[in-house]
């Protein structure tokens, strides 16, 4: 079967209802074709379903968003929205489900190298209250101690308490250290709930970093040892190496996608945020996610080749700092004639390839692989200074000719409170660009009026500077 059964319409961002119409034209053969956990072909593992499906199961915010109208993006959305079910099916089919919390980059590389193990990030549940326009998970977190005025990542604690968003993990690995306090607090209370957590240290990035890499290697050894104990399987260097290669394949494609999407406007910001975060945990199925990213990359290349943009060349160019928990914000700026040309979504550690090729020494034990992962992790956004985060923003803004910077935050989020202003200061000192800082409001059907007004005024200012 070829994809010719379905011809993508001309590139555009479409509404929920428009996707409903487009879905009627998707042939059954395509719906039957895509399954998670390849080569599995069980009927429960299909995922090419429209936003309507997930909206009906409570993802109410999908009704307000705009989506790319390509098959590749529909495929991506179906896969991403399907993750909860996928995790339960993983457990039902004998896979080991490992919660990797807090490090946003390295731990899943190790976990996924183990045969039959699958890593997921409870952290990413922070979007769920927004997607569902619901306070259910926040209320559950509040009962356990984490109330308002803290990062939305507290939703993960609520999810652990509920046992309904992912199966009780076979192992919880919690990375903490030079990262985020709110999430460290979540992890501590998760330990209280589940009774046993493998704590992994996240070192601070300093000018003299030698010790940090070796510390991480030792920490990763503990992870390996624990997984070996759990699975009864000894991780071979070849398995770890293959795991790194699989990771790198995704990261390489995502880097190319970022270049095309942010450089040439061929994919919307919302889909790109989903893609970037896929680098963390591949939405719990690296094999199928890799195919999806390849599909997206093919789409982006084809659009570039045919001059099909989804976002106008004339759109105002923005760099976005800190991922917005409310995805509607990304749609809104695009609706108002802007586009995102760079991001600093606190996941630098997952965006660059793990440099394993240049390691020339003996590969007969896993140390080299772990060291390569550790070195790559040392690029992490949150473990260094705010100046370093700002430098990444400044570099992207210069490269893409950005006209403005948006720094979205969370009221009460520990690193937002301390570094939002500092980042803005550094950027202001380096570039003559307007900066808009705001905190993302609570989950709901709309963006709050004040934020809308501020975004409108900001974009107007950028336009007037042309």
């Amino acid at each position, binding site marked *: 079967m070829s994809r010719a059964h379905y011809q993508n319409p001309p590139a555009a961002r479409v509404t929920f209802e428009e996707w409903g119409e487009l879905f009627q034209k998707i042939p059954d053969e395509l719906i039957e074709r895509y399954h998670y956990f390849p080569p599995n072909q069980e009927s429960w593992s299909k995922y090419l379903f429209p936003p309507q499906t997930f909206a009906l199961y409570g993802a109410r915010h999908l009704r307000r968003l705009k989506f790319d109208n390509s098959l590749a993006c529909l495929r991506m959305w179906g896969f991403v929205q399907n993750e909860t079910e996928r995790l339960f099916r993983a457990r039902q089919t004998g896979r080991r489900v490992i919660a990797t919390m807090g490090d946003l980059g390295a731990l899943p590389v190790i976990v996924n190298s183990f045969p039959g193990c699958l890593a997921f990030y409870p952290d990413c549940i922070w979007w769920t209250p927004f997607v569902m326009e619901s306070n259910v998970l926040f209320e559950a977190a509040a009962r356990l101690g984490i109330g308002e005025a803290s990062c939305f990542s507290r939703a993960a604690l609520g999810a652990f308490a509920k046992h309904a968003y992912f199966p009780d993990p076979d192992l919880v690995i919690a990375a903490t250290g030079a990262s985020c306090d709110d999430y460290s607090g979540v992890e501590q*209370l998760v330990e209280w709930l589940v009774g046993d957590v493998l704590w992994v240290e996240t070192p601070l990035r*300093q000018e003299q970093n030698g010790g940090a890499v070796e510390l991480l290697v030792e920490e990763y050894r503990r992870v390996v040892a624990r997984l070996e104990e759990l699975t009864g399987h000894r991780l071979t260097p070849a398995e770890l190496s293959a795991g790194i290669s699989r990771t790198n394949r995704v990261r390489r494609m995502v880097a190319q996608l970022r270049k095309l999407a942010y450089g040439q406007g061929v994919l919307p910001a919302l889909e790109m945020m989903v893609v970037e975060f896929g680098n963390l945990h591949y939405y719990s199925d690296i094999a199928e996610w890799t195919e999806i990213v390849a599909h997206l990359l093919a789409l982006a290349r084809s659009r570039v080749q045919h001059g099909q943009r989804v976002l106008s060349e004339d759109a105002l160019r923005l760099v976005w700092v800190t991922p917005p928990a409310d995805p509607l914000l990304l749609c809104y700026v695009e609706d108002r004639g802007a586009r995102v040309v760079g991001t600093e979504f606190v996941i630098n550690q997952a965006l660059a390839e793990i440099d394993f090729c240049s390691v020339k020494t003996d590969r007969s034990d896993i140390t080299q692989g772990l060291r390569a992962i550790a070195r790559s992790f040392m690029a992490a956004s949150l473990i260094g200074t705010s100046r370093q985060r700002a430098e990444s923003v400044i570099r992207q803004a210069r490269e893409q000719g950005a006209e403005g910077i948006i720094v979205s935050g969370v009221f009460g989020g520990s690193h937002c409170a301390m570094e939002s202003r500092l980042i803005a200061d550094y950027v202001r000192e380096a570039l003559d660009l307007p900066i808009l800082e705001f905190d993302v409001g609570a989950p709901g059907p709309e963006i709050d009026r004040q934020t809308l007004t501020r975004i409108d005024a900001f974009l107007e200012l950028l336009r007037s500077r042309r």
Partner: protein
Amino acid sequence: MRIGARLAQLRSARVEELQKLKEGGQKVIGYFCLYAPVELIRAAGAIPVRLMRGGSEAADSGRRFLRADACPFCRACLGNFPSDPVFRLVDAVVAVNTCDMMRRLPEVIGHHLSIPTFQVYLSRTSEPLPHRIDEFRRQLKLLADWLGSFCGSGLTDNSLVEAIVVFNRLRQGLRRLDSLRDADHPPISQSQLLDIAAVAWLLDPNAGAELLSSLLEHLVSAVRPQAVGLRPRLMAGGSIVTEDDRWILETIEERALVVADLWCTGTRWFDSDLIPGDEPLAALARFYFTRTACMCRRPNSGLYQAAHELIRRRRVQGLVFKTLLYCDAWSFEVPRLKAVLGIPVLHLDSDYSTENRQQVRTRIEAFLENL
């Protein structure tokens, strides 16, 4: 002379003395929390002063640099640099990467106030694994080198051991005072202990230790009015508490005894001694790494164990848990504390503003009535 007046006099004399020492070329190094190795600072020939002031005006003033939802203590620190007599003496700041706010504070200080800072990285995870302690030792070596170059002096094992010995004396003195609270009618209150410790830390540690000895003698021998009945015995805990929070203690102590605490400006600073051993730097690393954990360390079960032990030993009937707004590490733990400690818990969450004091008083009174 009453203790309070004596402490005030000592404090102001010490500030004058520090000014003179500074003029004489000695460096005054401000540090923030109980993980900062004061022995190293002293051994490098500098004077360590703990930066432990909050305050409403200072916190407001700090809003120039930090958002309203940043830690009030961090904001107050920034506000205190230009105004507080101790903060104004500071030549450089040593901070330890503990909670997120505290670890980012030095960058803000450096950027906005142009004060040199040194950030020590301490593992957030508390299990004392060899590689973590080794890394902390490496951090202390980096600090020692930096201090040496900043202060223009060499740091030797001997000077380090001398510093360890004098600070141990200070800790021992504070522990002896604290142990008076074992009694049914303790001769010392928590607010007194807080004031005494603050001044003892500000003084040269030898002078501090002498002060503590004389105070101990005074408190043990003083004739106290016959105590009337037993009052509720409480433990205090939570985010950092400074003299700016003293009013809360005074409110509690009108009707109850605070006989134990979990504060980093209280018992946790002095609850054990540092044994120098053959390798003082390694001993220093192990001591600081393994001291009774701050709530922000992971896992923080060590702190819970310490709390259980204090409850048992000091016959504690209730916990007053005072957190600063946005202090995640401590405030997130409230339901867990209530669930596992087995004693009533009063949670007070506030910044340094003075507006809600009556409300806090009412809540304290209600809590004590229910005990």
